[in-house]
């Protein structure tokens, strides 16, 4: 510990602290622009100059390490003079843009100019002008306003993982730019808007639409990925104007992925459904709630009477709140049907009834892991901020290995990578298991011991065994895999052998919540796959676009089209549903309802509505509750979402922060003999081409699909048939050529694209996009022919 005195106040700080750290410890504010607690120190703005006793000149507080007995003055004459001088320099080239600048009112430069600068200008000469850059559809630039603090540069370099921005030229000509003509395509790019202390980088979707002082700030939780980032939703006149991160060191730190940040645009989309609608003689008519709900109640009662309750099924969304999922399953069970599911993209349900997949650890602990294996994950796009945590872990010396079917650049230095066809993933994982078992001297199933081990598998196994805090995560791709249960069993066995933590990277905001709410088929019920494979008479769909969100889109569409009654609860007029649905009930998106999400680490996060429901829209939990009343079902008399939550989580106050005690990854008692628990199919899959399907980041759920700015990004590009050079040649096609892709009954026309990161024989076609809704499934054999 070192002794230091700041403005006469003495304190002790740990060795290696800088003056600004010490000042923060003391609660003393030192003005700064370039310093950011999560970024490296640049010390180039010079705003944090302070006087240090015995130092001849003022020192930058952010870059000066504390020495024992140091005496610092932050408000002495010398310090104030230095700060004033720096401020004057910063303002010399700053344009007179405040009135038209979106940062006005929340601008650090303004605040510090008023707080620490002179009150009058002495500068009379010309100001410099810097050309604006096109950084894509999310970030607007006004580069003349830039003060070259390089926070954005350091962010792209250190947090986002790829240095997409840099400071080119020098001296007076220095400017921040991307490599000539390129846009910033990071899935975390929105954070540079928050980081920019001035108005040089601002939000394009928000541009010129409101001032900070007009906006009401309300807390909420992101409904997208499994992280459940806490949000500050800023609203004006009952309209969501923008979304900012709510800092939580244990979840999102101070970051937010672009998906969480910009998806709000969908909330104000013209596609919003504002009144209940009934299909009457093939025509959609707007009706009153009473009429619509009566219709639904009658239709469900009729089906239950005529065809039995099992003819009804509920397809819920993992992006729905805990309360909605609970009431949804309660309604179905009340009607006598056990057909409830929310895992629309899952294909392998053989693990049902054996647990609740979750991360297996705290998100915050990811950063301290030293050995990680991620199986089947488009990590960066599926879990942008978890990827960021792993990236930081790698920087601290962790080894991250990847087992996957596509070699996307995760912008972290992977220790070992094994990229194989989807059908070979189990085999590869088994090889790692074998290797680890051999190294550990543990005996495993004969089927595994018989395998030949590849170098990569060996490297992965060695890496996992060499650390002290290891973890194995199954990504979305592994969970959606046809042999998800096998992958799971192997990964879990591997975890057991290596002593690693085992967990799932939750696909959606409430993937864990769905299990907790028991929105799952019981022993007698059908799961999502079965419900669509064996068509029902009536469907209740909550917040999902089944033809895009399901593992088998073709089958799903056929099932829905033949159904007598399809009731859709959705905030949007979903184009597909207009065809197959019979009733559209406008329900609130997350911004207009109260509810809870349980994120992938089992953290319960409840939130309130931030704006009034649009038009006749009503929170889905209320709709389901009234529907329960109309159907005369017992237990539908909750007056608030809190009461619904209490039904699920218990009435204890405060509501438990975590529900980890209810979570257990399936097969937690997995023994040495895997074969007993799950039939491991280690044979290679179809000989021919195999589809690798990713759910593109900006088509993952109903909301992001309707966010216009996100849809303009590169990540939202229309799906293509991606193959490596060998596969292209094998199919006799070339990159850029238009192809007909056939899978099962269906087909799609796509362009061929060269993707060197795929294994031979793999055709990567993104799922969840209308253009590929004609293809049969997210996996399996596929054929390609030139048009």
């Amino acid at each position: 510990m070192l002794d230091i005195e700041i403005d006469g106040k003495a304190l002790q700080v740990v060795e290696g602290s800088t003056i600004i750290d010490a000042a923060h410890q003391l609660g003393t504010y030192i003005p700064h622009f370039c310093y950011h607690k999560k970024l490296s120190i640049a010390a180039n703005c010079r705003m944090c100059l302070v006087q240090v006793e015995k130092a001849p000149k003022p020192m930058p507080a952010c870059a000066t390490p504390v020495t024992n007995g140091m005496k610092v003055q932050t408000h002495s004459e010398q310090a104030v003079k230095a700060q004033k001088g720096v401020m004057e320099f910063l303002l010399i080239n700053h344009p007179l843009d405040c009135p038209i600048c979106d940062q006005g009112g929340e601008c650090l430069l303004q605040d510090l100019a008023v707080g620490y600068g002179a009150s009058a200008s002495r500068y009379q000469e010309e100001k410099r002008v810097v050309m604006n850059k096109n950084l894509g559809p999310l970030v607007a630039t006004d580069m003349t306003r830039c003060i070259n603090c390089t926070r954005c540069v350091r962010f792209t370099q250190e947090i986002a993982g790829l240095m997409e921005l840099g400071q080119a030229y020098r001296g007076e000509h220095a400017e921040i730019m991307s490599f000539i003509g390129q846009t910033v395509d990071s899935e975390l790019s929105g954070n540079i808007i928050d980081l920019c202390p001035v108005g040089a980088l601002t939000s394009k979707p928000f541009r010129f639409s409101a001032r900070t002082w007009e906006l009401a700030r309300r807390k909420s939780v992101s409904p997208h990925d499994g992280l459940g980032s806490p949000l500050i939703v800023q609203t004006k006149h009952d309209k969501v104007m923008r979304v900012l991160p709510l800092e939580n060191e244990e979840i999102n730190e101070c970051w937010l992925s672009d998906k969480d940040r910009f998806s709000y645009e969908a909330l104000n989309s013209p596609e919003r459904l504002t009144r209940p609608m009934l299909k009457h003689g093939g025509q959609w008519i707007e009706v009153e709630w009473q009429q619509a709900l009566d219709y639904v109640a009658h239709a469900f009662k009729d089906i239950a009477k005529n065809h039995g309750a099992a003819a009804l099924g509920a397809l819920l969304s993992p992006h729905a709140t805990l309360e909605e999922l609970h009431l949804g399953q309660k309604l179905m069970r009340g009607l006598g049907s056990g057909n409830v599911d929310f895992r629309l993209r899952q294909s392998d349900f053989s693990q049902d009834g054996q647990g609740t997949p979750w991360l297996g650890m705290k998100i915050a602990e990811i950063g301290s892991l030293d050995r990680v294996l991620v199986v089947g994950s488009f990590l960066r796009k599926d879990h942008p901020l978890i990827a960021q945590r792993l990236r930081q872990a790698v920087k601290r010396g962790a080894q991250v290995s990847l087992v996957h079917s596509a070699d996307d650049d995760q912008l972290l230095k992977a220790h070992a990578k094994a990229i194989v066809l989807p059908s070979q993933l189990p085999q590869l994982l088994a090889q790692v298991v074998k290797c680890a078992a051999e190294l550990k001297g543990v005996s495993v199933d004969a089927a595994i011991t018989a395998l030949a081990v590849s170098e990569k598998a060996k490297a992965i196994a060695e890496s996992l065994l060499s650390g002290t805090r290891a973890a194995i995560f199954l990504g979305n791709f592994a969970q959606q895999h046809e042999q998800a249960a096998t992958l799971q069993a192997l990964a879990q066995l591997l975890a057991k052998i290596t002593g690693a933590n085992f967990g799932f990277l939750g696909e959606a905001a409430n993937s864990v919540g769905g299990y907790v709410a028991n929105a799952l088929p019981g022993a007698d019920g059908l799961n999502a796959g079965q419900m669509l494979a064996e068509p029902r008479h009536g469907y209740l769909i909550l917040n999902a676009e089944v033809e895009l969100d399901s593992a088998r889109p073709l089958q799903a569409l056929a099932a829905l089209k033949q159904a007598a009654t399809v009731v859709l609860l959705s905030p949007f007029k979903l184009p597909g549903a207009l065809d197959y649905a019979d009733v559209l009930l406008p329900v609130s998106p997350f911004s207009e309802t109260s509810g809870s999400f349980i994120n992938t680490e089992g953290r319960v996060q409840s939130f309130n509505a931030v704006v009034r429901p649009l038009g006749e829209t009503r929170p889905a939990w209320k709709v389901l509750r009234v529907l329960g009343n109309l159907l005369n079902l017992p237990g539908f008399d909750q007056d608030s979402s809190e009461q619904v939550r209490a039904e699920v989580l218990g009435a204890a106050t405060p509501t438990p922060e975590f529900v980890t005690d209810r979570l257990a990854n399936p097969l937690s008692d997995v023994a040495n003999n895997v074969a007993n628990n799950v039939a491991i199919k280690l044979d290679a899959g179809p000989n021919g081409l195999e589809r690798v399907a990713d759910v593109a980041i900006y088509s993952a759920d109903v909301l992001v699909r309707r966010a216009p700015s996100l849809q303009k990004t590169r990540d939202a590009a229309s799906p293509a048939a991606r193959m490596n050079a060998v596969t292209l040649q094998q199919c006799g096609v070339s990159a850029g050529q238009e192809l007909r892709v056939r899978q099962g009954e269906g087909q799609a026309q796509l362009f061929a694209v060269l993707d060197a990161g795929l294994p031979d024989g793999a055709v990567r076609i993104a799922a969840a996009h209308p253009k590929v809704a004609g293809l049969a499934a997210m996996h399996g054999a596929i054929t390609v022919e030139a048009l």
Partner: protein
Amino acid sequence: MAEIQNYTLNFGPQHPAAHGVLRLVLELDGEMVVRADPHIGLLHRATEKLAEQKTWLQSVPYLDRLDYTSMLINEHPYVMAIERLLGIEVPLRAQYIRVLFDEITRIHNHLLSIGTQALDVGAMTMVLYTFREREDIVDMMEATTGARMHGAYYRPGGVYRDLPGQMPRYEVNKFKNAKTVKALNEARSGSLLDFIEDFSNRFPGYCDDYETLLTDNRIWKQRLVDIGIVSKERALQRGFTGPMLRGSGVEWDLRKKQPYEVYDRLDFDIPVGVNGDCYDRYLVRMEEMRQANRIIKQCVAWLRDNPGPVIVDNHKVAPPSREKMKGNMEELIHHFKLFTEGIHVPSGEVYAGIEHAKGEFGVYLISDGANKPYRMKLRSAAFTHLSAMDEMSKGHMIADAVTIIGTMDIVFGDVDR
């Protein structure tokens, strides 16, 4: 025998002599007032509470609307309190301008007070004369602030802008020929200061006229003398201030006793009454107008000779000039922040009281360092004076109640706030 009951009369709130919206419940024994019960609150606008929601600057125009018969002087203690919290020195010229307009406002107030009191007791003409002079005064205010009543002119750190170099003039029209217009414009040919000086030269003559009409008038005296007597002790006990206190013979005037701004540099006298009745208070008010006129003359003379800034040049407090704001970065930023976030006033509490036309008007401010007051409390003289209504009117005739309301010089914007 029939039981004789006191007669209860509801006086106001629509009564023209109720000075706005006073609802006075009078209990009468015949024509004699047994009890007077003033009901207030009909003009309550929660100014104090509103101030907690507004930036320091934004409350200035609301202060105008308290005592809406003496507008600019209301702003004075508010900006003074802020200045004391900020610890800033206001330019001397701004202090003179404020004193000048305080005194102009004082005349403005007393003209209304005396004019309407005369009207209340039956002298119709007085109000026509006093309003004629008030017209000149509101012209001065319009020329300076842009508004004939609610100026919003005083600012923390000074006043908004300097006195204008010219006065608006009459134009020839079908009712007034060139000669008439020329005569009318004579006083308006120069600057505002010329106009004020001309007025201050004319004003003592007007005062003489008023005195001719009222001071010795037997009806006036019959209605005022020995009405509403308040003894020295009672006046002090009841917390009277201003002419109400001085009318009772207490020589107390904040301008002398706790000089603020430049009053210690000015030469003027404090008139006091002897009997503490309505008539004495009338005389005190008359003399105060003459003394105010004296102060005005001194201020005009000083202001002529001493041009200079009228607001502090520290842009952390006061906005920069428009020209600089449009051309310089620092100034633009400060302008932007001043008009959006406003100034941050160091935490602390302060009371600033001034000698208002009606008595001591004070603003008590608590700041927690934010851009809005944590709490604002207004001390208005009229409220205190009105509370003595029962005591003063007890035993008098019902007609005297009107005189007493008039002598209190209450305005409901001020009482109810």
